[in-house]
């Protein structure tokens, strides 16, 4: 893809942006749920299906070699993209949810946790980074502790040291909250946790499309994310883990291609990352990480990110100056937030607002957004979330603000 800083040109790379719904142009503001796919990703995806469909790592024939190479090239690209020291630290999964479940299962089956050990989970976590740990805690008699957030949505990092007893083996926090859009100080969290011998899992699902991610710089032990929220094919995801940690973990799923030798009395397992990739992988989807990463880099170039920053300020100003609207996740410094806005309106139900906006052509999310404890924390039954991507324009932002105002008035 040729570098092209012009947003209009970039929009042409995302054909869905030209769709109309109910006779109106689609304004897609549900990027935190899944981002749109550029032509380059779809082309790679179909090429892998039409021309190079063969199972990887197994056969010696030509097409299998191409497919294997594409898959492994993608692993190298992902490793470089997130600053991993080796491609062997990159495990492909079906998405963030599977990555967390894999980790919870494997850590749970290792000698890592002892009865009575503790896991800290940030109050703003997505259910995907909460429920697997809760399930594990039940199974292994562990205790879940909550790292609270302040009213502005930022983590109460000052309380972390008090929470970190010698029993705390793991802390789970999102790099960016899917409800609040706030960029959490994950590097600082890792430093504090590591002084206590506590490992850190960072959920990067909402971060990878918006921020430069470097796991080495963050210092996290594990980092998970999904392909489909960063323009790649759905059903793709990554579990990054420090090599020495992954190497000491037992497998998650057992089956083909994750073994070393199989005998009737015993099976030994393959080295990482293959140990965690049992069965046929998403052989068409994983290679799309390469064009997806190129897209992320293109969208985060200085000119476009300048536009995105302007759009973020505009939406923030417009929403926060409206007395009917309550905004959640408002750090003092707006640069500590991605262009994602969750709101509630006293006089209107979030679902009604979303339904009306839908008929105006605007795609937003309403509901609890897989973060029920957070909804309770703010005393709401749900919120309305508009999540922007770099390809959204100022015109779309203005149309959203105007339409939201109209919807609020309709419901008064």
């Amino acid at each position, binding site marked *: 893809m040729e570098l092209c800083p012009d947003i209009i040109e970039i929009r042409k790379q995302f054909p869905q942006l030209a769709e109309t719904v109910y006779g109106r142009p689609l304004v897609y503001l549900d990027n935190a749920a899944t981002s749109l796919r550029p032509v380059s990703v779809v082309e790679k995806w179909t090429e892998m299906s039409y021309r190079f469909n063969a199972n990887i790592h197994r056969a010696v024939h030509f097409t299998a070699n191409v497919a294997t190479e594409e898959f492994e090239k993608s692993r190298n690209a992902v490793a470089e993209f997130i600053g991993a020291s080796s491609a062997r630290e990159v495990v492909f999964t079906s998405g963030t949810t599977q990555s967390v479940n894999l980790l919870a299962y494997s850590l749970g089956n290792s000698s890592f946790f002892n009865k009575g050990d503790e896991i800290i989970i940030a109050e703003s976590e997505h259910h995907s980074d909460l429920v697997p740990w809760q399930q594990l805690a039940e199974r292994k008699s562990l205790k879940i502790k909550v790292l609270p957030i302040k009213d502005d949505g930022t983590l109460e990092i000052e309380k972390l040291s008090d929470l970190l007893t010698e029993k705390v083996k793991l802390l789970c926090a999102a790099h960016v909250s899917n409800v609040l859009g706030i960029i959490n100080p994950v590097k600082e969290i890792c430093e504090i946790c590591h002084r206590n011998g506590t490992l850190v899992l960072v959920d990067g699902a909402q971060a990878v499309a918006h921020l430069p991610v470097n796991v080495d710089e963050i210092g996290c032990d594990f980092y998970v994310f999904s392909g489909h929220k960063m323009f790649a094919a759905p059903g793709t995801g990554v579990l990054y883990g420090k090599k020495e940690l992954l190497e000491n973990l037992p497998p998650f799923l057992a089956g083909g291609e994750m073994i070393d030798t199989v005998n009737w009395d015993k099976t030994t397992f393959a080295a990482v990352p293959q140990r965690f990739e049992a069965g046929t992988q998403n052989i068409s989807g994983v290679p799309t990480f390469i064009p997806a990463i190129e897209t992320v880099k293109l969208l985060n170039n200085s000119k476009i990110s300048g536009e995105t920053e302007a759009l973020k300020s505009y939406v923030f100003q417009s929403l926060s100056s409206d007395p009917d609207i309550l905004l959640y996740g408002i750090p003092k410094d707006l640069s500590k937030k991605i262009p994602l806005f969750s709101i509630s309106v006293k006089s209107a139900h979030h*679902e*009604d607002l979303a*339904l009306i906006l839908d008929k105006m052509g605007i795609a937003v999310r*309403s509901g609890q957004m897989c973060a029920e404890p957070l909804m309770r924390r703010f005393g709401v*039954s749900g919120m309305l979330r508009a999540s922007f991507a770099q390809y959204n324009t100022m015109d779309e932002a203005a149309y959203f603000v105007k339409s939201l105002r109209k919807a609020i008035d*309709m419901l008064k």
Partner: protein
Amino acid sequence: MTSLEERKAAVVEEFSMFDEWLDKYEYLIETGKNLEVFPVELKTDDRLIKGCQSRVWLDTRVEDGRLWFRADSDAIITKGIISLLVRVYDGCTPAEIVSDSFDFIEKIGLRENLSPTRAGGLNSMIEKIKEEAKRNV
């Protein structure tokens, strides 16, 4: 009192006056607002209709062999939708409801204009009304 068929026809006619779905929503909002006040003490878990994204309560009373409904929701468009159902089926005999096809929903195009999540909620409302009727046949 009008018959079930007359009430259904009236709703279909009212809906046909609007071309735009936004106007139909506006109508549903107004309908929802005009719904009889639902006593707070009736907002119990057993009256909650499962399968809706917003909370919807349905209270059923049997009197003289007929079913009388009251409903509420914390979302106003949902309230408008359930109020249409209440308006059409209020005062029906259980047998009338059990044998009814609920075809007016299709005629006003409500189901296809709701998201699958929301249409699921609509189905849950209809199922709940049918369930109440079956229980009282």
